[in-house]
């Protein structure tokens, strides 16, 4: 019997630092598989965020730059404008993309920059220890919202896919999750599609991936999956929000 399962070529052979039950590992693998499938590893430049995935360059076996908090889309813009032949992706969390980097992502998307963004939304700041994010749910507790997110004070969580899809510039904007195998195949297709649009020089592409953070949610990995399905996915509904004509 032949080999049926192996590590993607685009991943390095190291253990990650991610917590048990965290979905970063699955998402890394899907991105690496898409890069392998498309045969583009040797011309990919990834851009790591500030947050839990800041060390992503330890896990991807391709060129990588490391951004300041929220600035990955501006760096990706710089790379794509001077080297359109490179395949560029940013990998950003919700604090990075939806809070401090809101300006950069909106304008990069609106310019139609031909790079791909993987947006990992787990509704909390992970690396800094569980502070409230722009995507934290109403009533959800965080270290800086000890009584739960009070929407009277800080507003409702931001739906980034919907917000970016409202821009008039053509783009591929989709929301996926990877909390169960049935979702993973769809997410893989979406990520591959996002890179394909970039290869075709078609449009900006963003895959939001609704994710878990058992450590900072104060849940077991299974509870985190269940809470994601019962709560997050009700608010952050899966599907394609924009597809280029």
């Amino acid at each position, binding site marked *: 019997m032949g080999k049926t399962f192996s590590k993607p070529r685009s991943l390095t052979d190291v253990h990650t630092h991610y917590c048990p039950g965290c979905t970063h590992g699955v998402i890394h693998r899907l991105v690496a598989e898409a890069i392998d499938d498309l045969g583009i590893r040797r011309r990919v430049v990834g851009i790591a965020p500030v947050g839990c995935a800041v060390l992503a360059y330890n896990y991807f076996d391709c*060129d990588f*730059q490391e951004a*300041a908090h929220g600035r990955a889309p501006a*760096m990706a*813009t*710089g790379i794509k404008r001077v*080297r359109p*032949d490179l395949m560029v992706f940013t990998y950003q969390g919700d604090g990075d993309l939806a809070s401090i980097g809101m300006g*950069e992502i909106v*304008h990069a998307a609106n310019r139609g920059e031909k790079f791909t963004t993987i947006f990992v939304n787990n509704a909390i700041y992970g690396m800094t220890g569980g502070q409230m994010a722009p995507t934290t749910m109403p009533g959800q507790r965080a270290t800086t919202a000890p009584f739960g997110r009070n929407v009277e004070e800080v507003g409702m969580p931001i739906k980034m896919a919907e917000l970016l899809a409202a821009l008039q510039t053509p783009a591929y904007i989709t929301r996926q999750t990877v909390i169960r195998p049935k979702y993973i195949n769809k997410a893989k297709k979406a990520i591959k599609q996002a890179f394909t649009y970039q290869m075709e020089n078609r449009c900006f592409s963003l895959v939001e991936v609704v994710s878990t953070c058992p450590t900072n949610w104060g849940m077991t990995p299974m509870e985190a999956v269940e809470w994601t399905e019962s709560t997050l996915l009700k608010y952050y509904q899966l599907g394609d929000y924009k597809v280029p004509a």
Partner: protein
Amino acid sequence: MAKVLMKGNEAIGEAAIRAGCLNYFAYPITPQSEVAEYLARRMPEVGGVFLQGESEVAVGYMLFGAAGAGARVFTTSSSPGISLMSEAISYIAAAQCPAVFVNIVRGGPGLGGILPSQGDYFQATKGIGHGDCRLLVMAPASVQEAVEMVMTAFPLAEKYRNPVMVIGDGLIGQMMEPVEFPADLKTEPSDKNDWATNGMDHRGSDSRNLVKSLFLDPVQLNDNNLQLKAKYDRMRAEEVRFEAYNTDGPYRLLIVSYGTMSRVCRTSIDMLKTEGIEVGMIRPQTLFPFPEQAVSDAADAPSCTHVISIEMSMGQMVEDVERSIQGRRPVSWYGKCGGEIPTPEEIIEVVKERIG
């Protein structure tokens, strides 16, 4: 090539192209917006990249990304805009990427004003970003010198893999002067294959390159800072540039002044000479590295009894002058800022008052 009459800001844009830099990202701000307006038309003619970013914050990172991918790249801005870019400048210095920043300085602090100033001396030479980072800083005193400094900034940035700043007060950007673009200052970009994220296929390598500034291991971070320090020390040894004026004879007072301010001082020195009062001047062309030895030696002339730093700021460079002279001569400051420029007559009055 024949001389052409050009506005400083347009000449700066053209100089970058003539130097071999075809990538420009910027955000509009007075008094340097003409650079962006000029290059918005000019870059398409030469097959270059022009992009107006959404903010100076973003522009700083567009430079970082492009430089990290191995491209020659530059931007221009003015004081408040440079403050916003300073975050990226720290990252670019830490990740050891070459990039060129031009600051056409306006009056500050805060929104300040839009007229010429030299109030960003501290920021450029000592506090450009968080952490132990420095820029190589060149200060032109004419449009021609601005052209030459911009053209030499690119190979210098690549030699040191460090950001370089050309800092001119608003007058340098706004006035028109005859200029020529020396053909011999056009340079080929350096080979960046050993570090740039330019793609494995592009450089024919099987190993990846990383452009980053995070070093969680304190030993590694210290090592990176030692590498940076070695570069800054090398700049101190190899890149100091200055001009001496009227320092051959016995001068009673030494002026230290740079940029537009030094041109006014030169007029004052000529006028004082007709009255029989000899005054010498050291004009730093690099603000970092500062011409410490030149200032120190000039101050040590037996005839020299006083040193004065004349600035379009409230006493910034004077601290470097004091540091260079180490108390061997009295050092004082004179200046105005916010668009007020000391006149030759005012400087003459100050010189006479200081030498008694």
